[in-house]
């Protein structure tokens, strides 16, 4: 079930919130666990059992680690192996098999492997691992209550597309959710902003990108670039919209999640970009991979190696396809170069130039990210530099680009902190509160209108 669906908004959410608020405090967490399982099972009626199995196993391992200091390390290894094996089996078997088949075609070519990816497996597996690893490190206490542990992992706001909430960050809140009106109202507003980002901006950009990516040869050079920027905005508003909705829903339920995006398209370097994009994932990789590998403490060559390992894994985490690895390595190499040479050169450029350059690098990255087929990637990137396409603009692409120009401009503005800045300034005035309320109502109405009309509504980040 996705948040930007009528099923979620008008069936799941009313039932869940009503039950959650009306039940006594002790029963709330259990109810949240139950509804989160319903939420997951609605889209994955079989794999919900897999997820429950994984939760029970890791909860048990946690208990074991707490009881027996002697077996602590062995249990940690067991848990990590178990979790990664599960992830590998369901996410990467197909890729692995096809790659091996490509290398040794003769004896293997007959068989194909197709395993459907359980929604959100990459997210909940990483959440579970954060708990077990932190428990091993003594950074957190054991969770003896399986319902609370289950509620942490399955909590529907962040279950299927993040943010990746670390156990240490919500541990205390599991016992004491903040259900004040102010907090809930903040949650409602954040949820509506996220819904608007997804439904009104991401989906619209998606329509433009679908049109322009279908036949790159007809676009012309400018059309191809507009298409790439449309996708760049689509993926941002799609994912950050989802994160906003997740954080908003978390607030409505009394939980505060760390922010997952911080205006990544105003970043002035690639390093800065990754401090602002999918923060919870970068934090996870830094905390549980980069630093354990030695981080920057073992000399420069080792640091570079660590960076490349982390970025190859980050790429692979995004999808079982080699283009994601290429995309990860693209950033690994760029970040290394930036650390070694470009960083100093970049600093001498005016900030606007640095920001535009970073945006361009990110856009090209999204191009690599989008095309799982390398020949299609080649064709599209060719069209960006005028290979294989006709002129600057095709007839259809100019109609589409001009038509979508106002939304593109709106998207570009919405990707900057300008809106938040103005809202903060105006929050001082009394008259702004009713205005803010009216804006929320209009936004909600437009989103529902769009949902009632359109069938084009897939979240990009559900593939992971």
């Amino acid at each position, binding site marked *: 079930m996705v948040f930007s669906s009528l099923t979620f908004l008008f069936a799941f959410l009313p039932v869940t919130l009503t039950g959650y608020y009306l039940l006594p405090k002790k029963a709330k967490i259990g109810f949240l666990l139950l509804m989160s399982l319903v939420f997951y099972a609605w889209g994955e009626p079989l794999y919900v059992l897999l997820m429950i199995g994984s939760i029970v196993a890791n909860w048990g391992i946690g208990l074991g680690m707490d009881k027996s200091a002697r077996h602590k390390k062995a249990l940690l290894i067991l848990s990590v192996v178990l979790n990664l094996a599960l992830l590998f089996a369901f996410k990467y078997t197909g890729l692995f098999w096809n790659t091996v088949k490509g290398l040794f075609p003769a004896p293997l070519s007959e068989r194909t492997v197709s395993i459907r990816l359980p929604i959100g497996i990459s997210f909940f597996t990483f959440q579970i691992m954060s708990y077990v690893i932190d428990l091993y490190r003594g950074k957190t206490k054991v969770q003896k209550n399986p319902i609370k542990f289950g509620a942490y992992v399955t909590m529907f706001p962040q279950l299927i597309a993040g943010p990746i909430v670390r156990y240490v960050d919500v541990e205390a809140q599991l016992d004491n959710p903040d259900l004040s009106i102010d907090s809930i109202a903040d949650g409602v507003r954040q949820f509506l902003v996220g819904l608007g980002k997804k439904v009104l901006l991401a989906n619209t950009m998606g329509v433009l990108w679908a049109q322009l990516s279908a036949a790159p040869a007809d676009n012309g050079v400018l059309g191809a670039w507009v298409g790439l920027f449309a996708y760049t905005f689509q993926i941002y508003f799609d994912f950050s919209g989802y994160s906003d909705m997740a954080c908003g829903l978390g607030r409505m339920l009394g939980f505060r999640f760390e922010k997952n995006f911080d205006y990544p398209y105003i970043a002035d370097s690639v390093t800065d970009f990754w401090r602002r994009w999918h923060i919870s994932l970068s934090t996870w990789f830094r905390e549980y991979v980069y630093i354990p590998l030695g981080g920057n403490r073992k000399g420069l060559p080792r640091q570079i190696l660590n960076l490349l390992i982390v970025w190859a894994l980050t790429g692979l985490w995004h999808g079982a396809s080699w283009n994601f690895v290429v995309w990860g390595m693209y950033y690994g190499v760029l970040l290394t170069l930036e650390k070694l040479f470009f960083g100093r050169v970049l600093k001498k450029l005016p900030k606007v130039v640095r920001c535009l350059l970073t945006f361009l690098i990110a856009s090209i990255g999204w191009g690599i990210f989008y095309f799982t087929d390398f020949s299609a990637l080649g064709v599209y990137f060719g069209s960006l530099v005028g290979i294989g396409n006709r002129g600057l603009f095709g007839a259809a692409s100019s*109609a589409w680009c001009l038509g979508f120009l106002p939304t593109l401009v709106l998207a570009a503005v919405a990707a900057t902190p300008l809106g938040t800045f103005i809202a903060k300034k105006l929050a001082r005035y009394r008259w702004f509160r009713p205005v*803010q*309320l009216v804006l929320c109502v209009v936004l909600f109405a*437009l989103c529902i209108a*769009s949902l009632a*009309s359109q069938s084009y509504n897939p979240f990009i980040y559900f593939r992971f």
Partner: protein
Amino acid sequence: MKRNVWNLLTVVLFALVLLAVPLAFLLLPYRTFSEAERRYLAEPPKLSDEKLSDWSYDDKVETFLADHLPGRNALVSVNAYLTLYTGRQVSADVFCDAEGYLVEAPVDFDAKELHKRLDRIAKLGETTGLAPRLLIVPSTGYVRSDKLPKTLAALYRDGEALQQIADAPGVSLVPLAERFQSEGQSWYYRTDHHWTADGAFAAYEAYMRAAGHEPLSRDAFTRSGIDGYSGSTRSRSALWLHPTEPLTVDEPIGCGISVTFSDREGTYESLFFAEHLDEYDWYPYFLDGNHPVTVIGNTNAAADAPVLLMVKDSFGNTLAPYLVPSYRTIVMVDPRYYKKSVSALAEQYGATELLFCYSIERIATDESLKLLK
């Protein structure tokens, strides 16, 4: 304190929407058909049809909810106006031009596919010994392209398609598009893709001249208008604040009319079927809409008056009333519903002329024309 009040109001309003919509969904009467959209709404999905390995129940529930959402018409319309006013109408099926005409987006035509159909038509000409004349109705967007933004106007390729038809061997194109383009009359409805009485009359004049007859003047017909017509482009666009318009009708004077249908009992003395004015789609008012074969006799025609075989789509239904006074018999065939031999029909009725009356969209895309025999 003040802040609290507005926060409370925000939460209360959000909760009200979340609760009121499902409540209204449960309490309001269940609809199976949307007149505004002219389509059947999704039926409740059955859980028993689902396989766990190929789970798509959630998608079906979503479609069902979207179709039956309380206030759906208003919401869909809000979204359509939002798309229009933010300039994104290129992504819609229907464009709204500068004068509020709702025109169909261009069809992507394939020259090869078009020629397959033209070859079939030429062959029918050879079999029947009648020269096929093609009366092709250009699309509204093409004729009114000066009222559309340039980028949208550039997407219509009617000119190219018409040229190909004009150059094709074995068929002759009746000249019409030039007149439609050069004289700025209301050839088309604002809310429908069809031509108005003016458009159909101009087509009638063009055909008569091409066939070597003198067309009758407007005085040979009585004009009337039926208010409140809302056509197909209006329903498809969801731009439901756009006004309706009169349906224009020309009735030939002094003809002894008999109409029969291949799939409807009885003989009728009128070309017009008023019972359809109570339905959501009024266009079948003309000759009861589309039938496999419709035969119109005129008892007041001269004994040696010609007999016309008209192969047509829905545009033919509004053209026929003008042709009635000049022909003894008009046999109208719609190959979408008539799969038997058209040349046999020509022989059966002793046809002396062969006319194809089609919109440019249908001539380029209709599959049934490829099976014509």
